[in-house]
């Protein structure tokens, strides 16, 4: 079938090149972070003779499986810096990439359900303000003004005692974000190579000199692993371990409904987070399954628990119909913070361990990873997030702000 709107809507937004025999840099993984890494390698560092190697199809992993929440209200200075950098980039990207991927700054409420929750939330709000991140603490009545369908009755198992609110937070259409980055990368000459799985690394002593792939050997002295749930599998091929564990994480959507949910609501305590997509689906996510898994599916009782939590918070969902559920594989770090930096192999860099919350960081992760790959040194944004923190003990414990919720 031909293109019914020639000149208006191209059939393909990027080329489908065969791999060259060598590149100045290779990014393994064609998800959001990989695409953003390649984009900033080209844009910020002038490296356009580069390739993205994707084992499946573009954005076929977590990039199009997440619940699209974007926010920067993290507790610690290091996290606030990188997530806020990301949020500022998100605010510019639709224009910069000339692609309206429906970035909607509709705010996020993080509910507090216990006295400890309230104390932690107030502390996080104050920390956010000190870091220039917009944040306020709302009473239950104020919560209901922002999101009228939230049940603030005291007569429930986990009543809403308040919430943090970040007005600049929001959602975006994740698959379109990937396409926007892909088109921009392609226009700058980046080769996006799909169906190209990395099966091994070529080394000269302790230095990486290329990768073996299902489409042949491709040489490069600079290689970045951006493989999310499969980071450990790649690291093992390169001969080292990462402090991450891969877990299934599930999400689901309802059928399409009239707009009823004007913001994003997250609750770590009862394990659910909810927004409404532009088309009208209620989008919900929960916590990870407890066991390690690469199956891109989880156990049904996790979904059941998540629906129960959603129903208590939003009684109006009582007759909503579930449309579909799916799972992704998330690589979780012991301190719920990511790893971006050098590896034990020279010239090989890693961006991994984002756990349940990597989507919101997509542009900043790419920004920092690109800087690290181009210069061989970490950017100030990712300097605290190196692998060495597990030896020095300088962990960045974001279980409170990351926890289950994204």
């Amino acid at each position: 079938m031909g293109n019914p709107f020639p000149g208006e809507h191209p059939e393909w937004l990027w080329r489908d090149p065969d791999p060259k025999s060598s590149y100045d840099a290779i990014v393994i993984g064609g998800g959001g972070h990989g695409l953003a890494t390649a984009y900033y390698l080209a844009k910020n560092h002038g490296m356009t003779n580069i390739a993205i190697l994707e084992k499946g199809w573009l954005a076929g992993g977590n990039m199009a499986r997440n619940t699209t929440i974007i926010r920067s209200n993290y507790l610690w200075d290091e996290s606030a810096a990188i997530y806020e950098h990301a949020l500022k980039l998100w605010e510019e990207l639709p224009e910069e990439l000339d692609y309206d991927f429906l970035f909607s700054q509709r705010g996020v409420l993080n509910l507090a359900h216990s006295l400890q929750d309230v104390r932690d939330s107030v502390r996080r709000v104050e920390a956010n303000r000190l870091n220039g991140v917009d944040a306020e603490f709302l009473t239950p009545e104020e919560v209901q003004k922002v999101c009228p369908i939230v049940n603030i009755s005291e007569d429930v198992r986990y009543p809403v005692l308040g919430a943090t609110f970040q007005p600049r937070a929001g959602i975006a259409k994740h698959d379109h974000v990937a396409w926007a980055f892909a088109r921009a990368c392609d226009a700058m000459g980046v080769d996006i190579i799909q169906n190209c799985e990395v099966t091994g690394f070529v080394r000269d002593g302790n230095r990486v000199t290329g990768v073996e792939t299902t489409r042949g050997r491709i040489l490069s002295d600079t290689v970045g692993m951006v493989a999310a749930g499969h980071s450990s599998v790649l690291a093992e091929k390169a001969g080292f371990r990462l402090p991450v564990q891969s877990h299934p994480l599930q999400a689901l959507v309802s059928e399409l409904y009239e707009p009823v949910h004007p913001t994003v609501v997250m609750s770590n305590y009862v394990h659910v987070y909810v927004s409404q997509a532009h088309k009208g689906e209620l989008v919900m996510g929960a916590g990870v399954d407890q066991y390690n898994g690469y199956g891109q599916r989880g156990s049904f009782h996790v979904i059941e628990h998540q629906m129960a939590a959603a129903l208590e918070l939003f009684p109006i969902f009582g007759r909503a119909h579930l449309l579909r559920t799916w799972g992704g594989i998330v690589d979780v770090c012991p301190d719920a913070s990511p790893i971006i930096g050098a590896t034990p192999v020279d010239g090989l860099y890693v961006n991994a361990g984002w756990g349940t919350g990597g989507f919101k960081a997509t542009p900043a992760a790419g920004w920092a990873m690109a800087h690290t790959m181009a210069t061989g040194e970490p950017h100030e944004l990712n300097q605290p997030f190196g692998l060495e923190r597990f030896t020095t003990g300088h962990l960045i414990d974001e279980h409170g702000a990351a926890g289950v919720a994204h």
Partner: protein
Amino acid sequence: MLQIECPWCGLRDETEYKYGGQAHVAYPEDPSALSDEEWAEYLFFRDNPKGPFAERWVHTGGCRKWFNAVRDTRTYEFLAVYANNEPRPDISSLTGADTAGATA
């Protein structure tokens, strides 16, 4: 939901169990003798194979005993269940060649 065979109670729902991560990770005999790197390795680094994985489970909703299992992290299929003082069983006959990363 997974169905898990407790060595003492038999087949029960996953919701009766808690997960304990990689099995056969011994506490260091002399922790104070470890370098920072070795201590980090013990504290934070665990195998994360795509394939058979020897792991710990505890039957919290039943006998409350810990035990070990070998489970395939691709299919979630349990390949063996055994007591936590037993060595990891040889499951190579059950899984074929691809046991990459499954060193315990």
